[in-house]
């Protein structure tokens, strides 16, 4: 094998298909590594926690696809730059608004410390120089030691009324962001929050401004306001884990089973192959459903279930290959010399099957990934982890395809297909290397 290794690597890399497969796989591995290494680790725990996604919009289109005449406002979240001293603190938020629809709402979240009561005042400086007052809120007296948290919404009835009254009848959002002709005034805005303390001290600990819009981020959001980029990124390590571990385990088990049966021959072979036939004839999906429903839907248990159906085909092929190998002279010689069976298998039979094993590992991966995705789609996936199949399940449950939310439907499936394709390509070029007869065709 060590002698064949480099030549097989060369074989894979020499075909265009093999290079494409290795390229896609490398990109997926990089994405997985980046995901696992980055702080998104927090996000995966929050995936099913609606409270974690409150600041994002519902079913927002990806920002890059938000073009054309019906351009929606972009959903933006900006942290405030805090300055000031004594009893006066200012948090300013720089905000770029593009042409198109007017952002329908705005929200300020703050954490502040103040001794005595305080006044929070929020206003917007528009690109055209105009100043629009949004709200003035009296904060109840505090001891100055503990942080007070609060929010100011434009959607709040009193805030909205005040802005509308001051602007002379126009809607609150139009008064802040409008250009007077129904669209948004493009340019840089400054949203400024000021805290005036009645006592000796008042300061913002932190502030965050959220401007509502129908477009968000790289991949948009789903109906539960979740950032789809987070789910898609998390799907990559999960899919690779499921695909690769199922493929490696099934091929190893199938190889050992088939090799033993083929090498021993006779009654043992017959009995082992009949048992193999039974598993072969089981319809995989109904069984996986029963197993997942009755035992567990943990992703690790799911891997074991998939292995139970994955090893059978490999066992069949490796048995016939082992039968052929047994007939070779040097295997016969090794047996006649009194080598133990295990040693003969390991030294003389196994090396002949290894290239085939590598190719079948690569070819088994896509099936494992699509089956896991299918089970997740039926609602039997591990609820702890956002796999691509689960994203598609959520999309289907919310009728995303019929409602035209393509950014929720297309990317997860495309990722499944791309991952599968990478392994199909690698497997195909390995197969061509192992099986030169195929090249003729």
């Amino acid at each position, binding site marked *: 094998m060590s002698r064949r290794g480099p030549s097989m690597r060369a074989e894979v890399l020499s075909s265009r298909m093999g290079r494409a497969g290795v390229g896609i796989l490398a990109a997926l591995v990089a994405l997985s590594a980046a995901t696992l290494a980055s702080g998104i680790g927090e996000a995966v725990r929050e995936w099913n926690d609606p409270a974690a996604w409150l600041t994002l919009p519902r079913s927002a289109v990806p920002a890059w696809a938000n073009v054309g005449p019906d351009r929606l406002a972009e959903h933006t979240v900006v942290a405030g730059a805090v300055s000031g001293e004594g009893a006066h603190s200012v948090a300013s938020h720089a905000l770029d608004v593009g042409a198109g629809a007017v952002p329908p709402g705005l929200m300020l979240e703050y954490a502040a410390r103040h001794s005595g009561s305080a006044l929070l005042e929020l206003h917007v400086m528009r690109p055209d120089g105009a100043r629009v007052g949004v709200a003035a809120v009296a904060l109840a007296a505090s001891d100055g030691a503990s942080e007070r948290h609060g929010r100011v919404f434009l959607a709040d009835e009193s805030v909205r009324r005040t802005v509308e009254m001051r602007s002379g009848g126009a809607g609150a959002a139009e008064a802040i962001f409008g250009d007077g002709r129904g669209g948004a005034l493009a340019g840089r805005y400054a949203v400024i929050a000021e805290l005036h303390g009645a006592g000796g001290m008042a300061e913002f600990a932190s502030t965050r401004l959220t401007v509502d819009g129908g477009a968000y981020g790289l991949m948009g959001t789903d109906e539960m306001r979740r950032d789809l980029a987070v789910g898609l990124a998390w799907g990559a390590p999960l899919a690779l884990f499921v695909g690769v571990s199922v493929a490696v385990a099934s091929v190893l088990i199938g190889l050992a089973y088939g090799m033993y049966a083929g090498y021993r021959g006779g009654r043992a072979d017959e009995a082992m192959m009949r048992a193999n*036939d*039974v598993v*072969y*004839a*089981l*319809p*995989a*999906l*109904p*069984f996986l*459903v*029963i*197993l997942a*429903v*009755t*035992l567990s839907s943990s992703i690790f248990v799911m891997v074991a279930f998939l292995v139970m159906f994955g090893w059978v*085909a490999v066992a069949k092929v490796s048995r016939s290959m082992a039968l052929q190998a047994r007939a070779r002279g040097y295997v016969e010689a090794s047996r006649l010399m009194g080598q133990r069976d295990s040693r003969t298998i390991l030294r003389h039979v196994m090396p002949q099957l290894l290239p085939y094993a590598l190719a079948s590992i690569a070819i088994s991966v*896509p*099936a494992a990934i*699509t*089956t896991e*995705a*299918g089970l997740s*789609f*039926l*609602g*039997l996936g591990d609820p702890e982890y956002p796999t691509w199949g689960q994203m*598609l399940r959520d*999309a*289907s449950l919310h*009728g*995303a*395809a*019929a*409602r*035209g939310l*393509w950014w929720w*439907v*297309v990317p*997860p*499936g495309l990722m*499944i*297909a791309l991952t*599968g*394709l990478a392994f*199909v*390509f690698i497997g*195909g070029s390995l197969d061509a290397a192992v099986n030169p007869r*195929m090249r*003729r*065709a």
Partner: protein
Amino acid sequence: MRYALTRSLAMVGVLFATLFITVVLVGSGMDDILGRSVAYHVRAEIAADPALAASFADPGALEAHIAARIAEREAEIGLDRPWWSPERIASSMWRILVLDFGRANFLSSDTGSTEVADILAERLPKTILLFTTATVAISAIGVGLGAMASSRARSAADRLTSAFAVISSSFPVWWVGLLMIFAFSFAWQVFPPRATPDVPPGDPSYVASLLYHMALPLMTIVLVGFGAWSYLVRNFMVGVLQEDHIAARRAIGVRERRIVYSHALRNAAPPIVTVMALSLSGSLGGAIITEAVFDWPGMGRLYFEAVLAMDLPVIVGATYVLTAFFLASVLAADLLYMRLDPRTAAR
């Protein structure tokens, strides 16, 4: 004949193995459900009879009476023995074998029956209709296209077929279903996104409505399926076309069309049928999930609903019926193989 008999016996053996595994897997869960339904019925009977409740002096005695009645009822249906006792397993297997799946917990058939067998009888024909139509369409397109590609090996058409086969086979069918809904129900509103017919069964236009609603799922399954089949046919055919007897026919001047579509195809048929029979399991699984995507009122959607509601009796029944259906199609493929390859029959 002997071959057909041994194959049929083997299939019955597999069916029993499936039954056994199912019963073992769901045994404790089913006992829970049965126990709860017995308790529910006993309490309902006692609640319906106020005089009986009044005849007990204190609530404790009433509870003791209820517990005694529940135990009595459980003993009647054998629940007093653990589910893994041989008699219980045998009786559970027997009940499933004769299609007595009990009552569903939540789901019901269109006619309002909660008997699992009734629900299945309503759903299975729809799956068979969709799956069989799709399989026939796929094999027709696949064999035709594969034979065409093999006769022009390495042409642009051949490469296109191969590339399409490789790429389409890595798409999950049901995802392509979602894309089809997006394309044909949202972008161009040609077909309905939900494949459930909107007229009640029995209405004269029911069949037309059913077929109209079937179009989108059928197109999806065929679109994703035929590539792999044509690729398979092509690969076997390329091998056969290189054999000597084909060269001999060419030499005596048989027309190429006739060679490809008659002689070579007949020679390539046995392995093609075998591989296709083995791929049935995968395509059945794909079709089941595709049904769930389109709300096609077959077994797939039943699974989807049953899993959502954790309706164990329905899941058990659906698994058994699907397994039987699957084994029957594998057997059919086996017998077809026997017809195509006389060597098997002689063996």
